[in-house]
Structure formats: structure tokens, C-alpha cells
């Protein structure tokens, strides 16, 4: 088996432009990888190898004719099944195809099409993206490739995204993040994830969960790949920062509580390596952390916006909802408009202060997810699912509520030999700067593949 697909995207992009590498060959490798690893992993809701090959041939023809239409021309990009892709059904993780208006493409997909990226298919999502575990009773829960013995969850809601990267059927995976839905699956599958600042990338053409928090995002295998893809979608480009003198804020509250064995340790080891390379650790209290998290635990605003969306636009989808989802609805139905507005104001007020305070440091860090990815059997009941879901999302959701941007990068394996992510957070709007910092950290720490090797279920 050839190993084109294991190379970095920047390297592939050069090869494609010099004519040494064909997009079609790359697509064929992606297809072969899926054939080899795909079945037990179940990353895709919709797998379209023929379409991918056609798109790749078009990209090649354009390269040959001298057209370079963007950094992702010819690169396989998997698409979360929340995004509208023309001609492909959108299920959004539900049992029924959504109405046709959910198949009208938004700017992100349209932009990737203009660049002639290659779409091999649509990846699984938690039903309407509501959940951090990755659980989906309708279409099956994709399997985390890092445990060959037990079926562990891949994280969600972009549950197929990280798995598609691990198996090698895509080099970039599109996801969306309302409380951690890009960063959690990235962290749990040993990949990199970028959650952009709210409002930075359009959510048009993506089935909504909570329009006040929804943000698009991308997953890749390395920060170098992430920076490349970020520049292809964003208006700014990320340039590598320097670790020397980098002020890294560490908040000892909340984020480090209740970590599974090996997680806090793995993140701290990575931080020590960064300190050896010249970074400075600064004790930093994020103002408003407690009231914001308390309000989130009371139910926050996601369930209300989600319930309202279904009630108003997809009432027929309510009765087939996964029981894990429905149990979080009761409170949403009762909540008053006045209380909803008050919560929104509370979040916004604290976000303003927090963003101001973050000027004092370059980046704020935490473990991305506090716990080892649970085994599927442990989250198959409402009692098992609820607390684990909450804990899985705890460290990431603060970033959404506080209007920050965030990156996760793999830095270690925990005691259960499952991947551990380091979360980097920065002020809203500083996305490019943040990716530049992550790039600098990766140059010190090495990529996930270097640090952790390959997932046992995807060994070459």
C-alpha cells in the first residue's frame, strides 16, 4: 500500500502543484484505506467513492491546465452530515432525511467546491449534534480506533470526523462545535481540532443546534495540516509564533478536576516541555468561570434553542428522537423567555470581561476532555450517559459560552492508552494568532503521530 495519504497536506499540496502527485491517486488511496479499516469503524453515513474520484480527476485536469484554485484543490475533505451538500441527503444524525432546504449549500462547502477539494462522503454525527459522546442509536456509534478490544466512543457530536482522519479516508474533516463538538472528537481520536470564534465562519447551510453558539470547525491530523486548511477557508493566514517567551495561562480551577488517570499528567508533561523551550506558565483565573459553568449546568441555552428549532421547523422529528436527547428536553419546554434572555445576558456579560482579561496572556490551556473515552456499553443507558456526557463537554463548552476560539492538539496517551488533548484557548477573533501558537507548540512537541504512534486499529 502506498503512503501518499500519510504525508502532510502542505507537502501534498506542493506535489500536486508540481505534477508529481495526482489527486486521483490520492483519492484512490483514501478509498483503499476506507476499504481496509472502514467497516468496524463506521465513520461515514454516506460513502461516495465514485464522486470522490470524479472530483479528483477534475482537480487534476485543472492542475494540468495551470489552474490553482486554492490550497485544498485535490485534497480529500470529509463532511459532517450536518452540512448541506447538493445532491446528497442530509440526515443530521436523525432517522429520516431532512427536507430539501437542508441540502442548500452554505459558504464553506461552496468555497471548498470552488477550490476543487474532494468530498469522499458525509460522516456520522450525533442526532442533531446534541451530545458530546458520539452516541447514535439510529445509525450506530462510530468506533474509536485507539482501542482494539472494546468499542469505545469516538467523541461527538462530529463523531465520524476524527475517525475518518484516523483511517486515512480524508485529510481534513469538517465539523461543527456548539459545546465541544469539534474539539471533543478530535481529542478522543488523537487529532487536531479548531473551533473558530462565533460569527467568524458562516453557519449557513449547516443544520442548527444552538444558533447563539454554533460555530463551524475543522479536524486534521496535525497542526501543520490545520493551519493549511484554516488558511484555505479563512481570510487570514496563520503564521507560526514562537514558544520562547510565550505566556501560557493555567487556571487551576474546574478544568483540572475529576480527570481520568493519565490525562492531567499527560497535559502537564507537554506543558513542561514547552517551558523547557522557553514558554512561561502564568497562573490565570478566567473571570466568570464559575457563574457561567453553573448556568450551563442548569441547562444553559442549547436545549431551549434546539427544542425551539425542532418545534418550529421539524416537528415531525421530535417523536423519533433518541431518548438520551429527549431526557434533556423536559426542562427546555418549561423555561421562560425571561429566564432565557437573562441567561444569554449573563453569558454575554461574562464573555466581555473574560475576553478583555485574556489580553494579559497569549494563550489559556487545559486538558481538552477530562475523561477517558467511555466504553459504549457504559453510556448505553440514560444513567450512564448523562454524567459522562456532561463531563466530556465540561472543558470545551466554556470556550463557546465565553465567545473564545480554541484549538485541541494531541499530546499524550492516558492510562487506558487513549489519546489526550491539550486545549489552547484565546480571545474571540484571535483565531489566526491561536493557530500560529499551536503550530509553534507542535514544532516543539511533535505531531500526534510522532508522540503517540498510530491507532491500534489503523496500523499499516
Amino acid at each position, binding site marked *: 500500500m502506498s503512503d501518499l495519504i500519510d504525508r502532510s497536506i502542505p507537502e501534498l499540496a506542493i506535489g500536486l502543484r508540481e505534477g508529481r502527485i495526482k489527486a486521483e491517486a490520492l483519492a484512490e488511496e483514501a478509498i483503499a484505506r476506507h476499504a481496509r479499516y472502514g467497516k468496524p469503524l463506521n465513520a461515514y453515513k454516506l460513502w461516495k467513492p465514485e464522486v470522490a474520484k470524479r472530483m479528483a480527476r477534475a482537480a487534476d485536469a485543472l492542475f494540468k491546465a495551470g489552474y490553482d484554485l486554492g490550497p485544498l484543490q485535490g485534497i480529500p475533505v470529509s463532511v459532517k452530515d450536518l452540512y448541506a451538500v447538493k445532491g446528497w441527503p442530509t440526515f443530521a444524525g436523525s432517522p429520516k432525511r431532512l427536507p430539501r432546504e437542508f441540502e442548500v449549500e452554505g459558504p464553506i462547502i461552496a468555497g471548498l467546491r470552488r477550490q476543487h477539494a474532494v468530498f469522499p462522503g458525509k460522516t456520522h454525527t450525533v442526532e442533531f449534534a446534541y451530545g458530546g459522546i458520539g452516541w447514535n442509536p439510529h445509525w450506530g456509534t462510530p468506533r474509536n480506533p485507539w482501542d482494539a478490544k472494546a468499542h469505545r466512543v469516538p467523541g461527538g457530536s462530529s463523531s465520524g470526523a476524527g475517525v475518518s482522519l484516523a483511517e486515512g479516508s480524508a485529510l481534513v474533516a469538517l465539523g461543527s462545535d456548539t459545546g465541544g463538538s469539534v474539539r471533543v472528537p478530535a481529542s478522543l481520536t488523537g487529532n487536531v481540532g479548531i473551533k473558530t470564534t462565533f460569527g467568524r465562519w458562516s453557519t449557513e447551510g449547516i443544520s442548527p443546534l444552538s444558533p447563539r453558539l454554533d460555530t463551524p470547525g475543522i479536524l486534521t491530523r496535525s497542526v501543520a495540516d490545520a493551519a493549511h486548511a484554516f488558511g484555505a477557508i479563512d481570510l487570514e493566514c496563520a503564521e507560526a509564533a514562537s514558544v520562547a517567551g510565550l505566556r501560557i495561562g493555567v487556571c487551576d480551577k474546574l478544568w483540572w478536576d475529576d480527570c481520568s488517570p493519565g490525562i492531567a499528567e499527560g497535559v502537564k508533561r507537554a506543558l513542561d516541555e514547552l517551558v523547557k523551550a522557553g514558554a512561561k506558565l502564568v497562573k490565570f483565573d478566567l473571570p466568570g468561570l464559575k457563574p457561567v459553568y453553573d448556568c450551563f449546568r442548569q441547562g444553559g441555552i442549547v436545549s431551549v434553542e434546539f427544542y425551539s428549532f425542532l418545534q418550529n421547523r421539524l416537528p415531525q422529528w421530535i417523536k423519533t428522537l433518541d431518548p438520551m436527547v429527549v431526557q434533556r428536553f423536559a426542562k427546555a419546554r418549561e423555561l421562560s*423567555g*425571561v*429566564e432565557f434572555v437573562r441567561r444569554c445576558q449573563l453569558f454575554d456579560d461574562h464573555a466581555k470581561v473574560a475576553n478583555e482579561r485574556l489580553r494579559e496572556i497569549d494563550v489559556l490551556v487545559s486538558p481538552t476532555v477530562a475523561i477517558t473515552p467511555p466504553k459504549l456499553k457504559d453510556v448505553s443507558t440514560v444513567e450512564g450517559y448523562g454524567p459522562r456526557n456532561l463531563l466530556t463537554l465540561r472543558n470545551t463548552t466554556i470556550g463557546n459560552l465565553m465567545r473564545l476560539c480554541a484549538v485541541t492538539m494531541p499530546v499524550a496517551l492516558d492510562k487506558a492508552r487513549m489519546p489526550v488533548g491539550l486545549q489552547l484557548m484565546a480571545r474571540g477573533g484571535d483565531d489566526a494568532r491561536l493557530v500560529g501558537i499551536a503550530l509553534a507548540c507542535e514544532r516543539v512537541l511533535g505531531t500526534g503521530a510522532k508522540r503517540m504512534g498510530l491507532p491500534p486499529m489503523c496500523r499499516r
Partner: protein
Amino acid sequence: MADHMSLSLPAMAAALRERRLSAVSLFEESAARHARYEALNAYKLWSPDSARASARAADAAFEAGSDVGPLQGILVSVKDLFGTKGQPIFAGTRRELPKRFQAEGPLVRALKRQLAVVPGRTHTTEFAIGEYGFGTNTHWGTPRNPWDAATHRPCGGSSSGAGVSLHEGTAHLAFGSDTAGSVREPASLTGTVGLKVTWGRWSLEGISPLSPSFDTPGLLARTVEDLAYGFAALDPSPKPLAPVELAGLRLGVADDWFWTECSPGIAEGVEEALDELARKGARLIPFPIPEAPELDTVFSGEYDIMSAELYAFLRAELPDWIGLVNKPNSRLLAHVSRMPAWEYLRTLKQVRDARAVVCPRMDDIDALVMPTVPVTAPAVDDLIKKGSGVGALELRNTGIVNLLGQCAISMPVALDAERMPVGLQIVAPAFAEERLLSIARAVEQTLGTARQRLGAPPMIK
């Protein structure tokens, strides 16, 4: 009495710069008028000492050859909803708000930076919301409309003292705010000109909120010419006003729904003005908005979003005030506390959907026209006796503009059957304030200013 107050703002600014007129003498004229018309009750707080000090500073700057902005030495009254440092803010309520509400936002800061003179803080309805309608305030009294010498009629709300302050001649410009009509209604009822800017054009910082989803600051003036001058002085990035020809101007005339149930003389007065414009070549194009009655329920339906957002603000920021609000407002808040969150969100979505459908249709016209307020304001005593809250009719034609996210001007064009002023509302697309002002200016050049068309209010001589 010297009468420099009747000068247009551009003429006044020129006279100040040529040292033919001093800011202090302007303010003393204003103070004399205030003494004379105090019974109209425009101001919650009249602050002659700080105003005189600002006027002196403006003069000293002129003397030193410094021209720090178009409003230097100009009198601007400020609604009691805006923070002004060191002055108590009540927001129309029974008790002074905490000191943090005195913090100044960008609009008031712009006044201070330009050395404008703020003679006082004008009355508002309680938290800028309904009460008994039309600008009534039972805590501090309802400002008196100078167009009726016999009966105490209200001046429109919520910026209830703004229009009166202009008539008294104590201010040349008046700051107001507008959530469903709170700048345009007082402008219409007092025969002055009022601009509601597009949501998001001017910052709401430093203004006590009513409904952040729809709140907008606004400006009242005696003429469109003055208003355009004030707008250019306050907007962070104003574009020059391009001249507009009435000939060929496409005026969309809002459909019948906006003209029904008008009090005698109101629809007639606006129609007559439109006919005059048509005779100058403006094209009157029927403009149906079939979505309007349904959209109107956002403010007039079972639960209104304004009170829901106000209640949320009070719970978080001013819980002690909830028990202090007057009776009709207290009933309103108690009722809206039962609005479910999903209903709140459904309503907001209804607004967004309506915008997406209606706003593109505006591309076919230059502006939309209709009466500003369809009804004549009754006597204050009758309003309070009847005990009703906001009549749905009162804000029908103005509220829709906030819901659609557009900008609009109200300008006086007639007197109704009870000899009270009638406003013509001109609506333009979002962020088209300059175009809107140009159109209103062309209309004013044809129809004449309020003073020319309506004469002076009987109580102002």
C-alpha cells in the same frame, strides 16, 4: 427676548464660529425660555450650572480658535435613559438608578467631546415602556403637548420630553431612543422631525435598555435640515447627502392596513402631502406588505418581546425596581413572565423570516411612506382613567420598522381634525440613513418646514 433659537443649525454654527453669537448667550436664551415654559414639563432634570459651564468652555475654545466639532456650543437635550456623568438617572422610574447607569456611552461622549451644551435630561416613560400609552408617566407627570392650550394632551413616548424641549426652544437637538416608535411617535405628536437609525448603526452603550433586540438610539430636531446636521455630527462614518430629485422618486405607499382606523384628518393630511409630492413628479407606487398583520403580533400579541427582554434585564440588573413599577407596567411584566423560552425564540425567528421576505421587495422603491401614528392622542386624564396599557394601534405603523430592522424618519405634514400635528413616516432600508435624509430633505423643500406648514403651537409664542 432675543431670538437666535429660530436660526437653523447650520446658520447658528456659522454665527458661533464668526463670533456674532456666543454659546453663553445662546444658553441664557434657552434658560429664559425654560423659565417661561416650565409648565410644559419637558425636563426631569434641568441643569443650568453644568450647561453654563459647558457653554463657557465652548466659547473659550472658539476664542482660542479651536473648532472641536459641529456641535460646539449647540444645545442638545438628553433623554433620561442616557447616562450623563455626575447626573442622576431615573429612566422614568420612581427611584434613582445605581451610579453605574451614569456611565456615558459613545453618543453622549461625542456631545462632550464636541463641547455641545446639555441643558438637561428630558422625561421618558418608565423604562421607555408603555404605561398608559402616548408618553404618560404617573411618577413624574406627563409632559404637556403645546399644540392644545385647552386640554393636557401627552407628547408621545417614550421620549416624551424630547419634542417639547425643541418647541420650548431650550434645545436644538434632542436625544431619544426608539424600540417600537419612541422617537417617531413624540416627533409626530409634537410636530417635530425624528430619526430612528438602523439597529446597530449607533451604539446602545450608556443607554438603559428596554429590548436589546430592537432598541435603537435616535435624534429629534425642528427641521430635516437640522436633523441632517446633527446626524453628520454624531455618526461615526457619515457619507455626504447626495441631492435627490422628487421627479421620478419611487415612493411605495404602504397598503390599506397601515391606513385603517386613522383618527379624522390623519390619513387625509398624509394623503394630501403625498399628492403634493406627486405633483412635483414623485411616483406613488402601491406597496403591499401582506406579512404586516402577522408580524404586528410580535409586539401586540399575547406575549410581547419588549417586556420579556425588559423583565430579564430587571431581574439581572435592577431586581429592586420590579416592585416599584407602576400598575400597568407591573401587569405587563407579570404576564410576560409566563412566556415560554421556545415561544420567545419562535417569535425572533418569525421576525428574521419576515425580514428575509419583505426587505428585498424594498429594492423596487426608494422609500416607503405612511402615517407615523394613526391616532390622535387623547387627553392624559382620559388615558389614565381608561387604565389601558399600550394600545396596539398607537405603535402599529412605527413598530413594524423596528421589526424589519430598517431606518425611518417622521416629519410633520399637517394638522388633524383636532388641530394636532400629523406625521408622515418615511422608511428606508437598513443602513440607508443618508439616502433617507436626502429624501426627507427633498420632501421638506417641497412641503415646507413644520413652522411654515403648521405654524407655531398655540402654547408657544
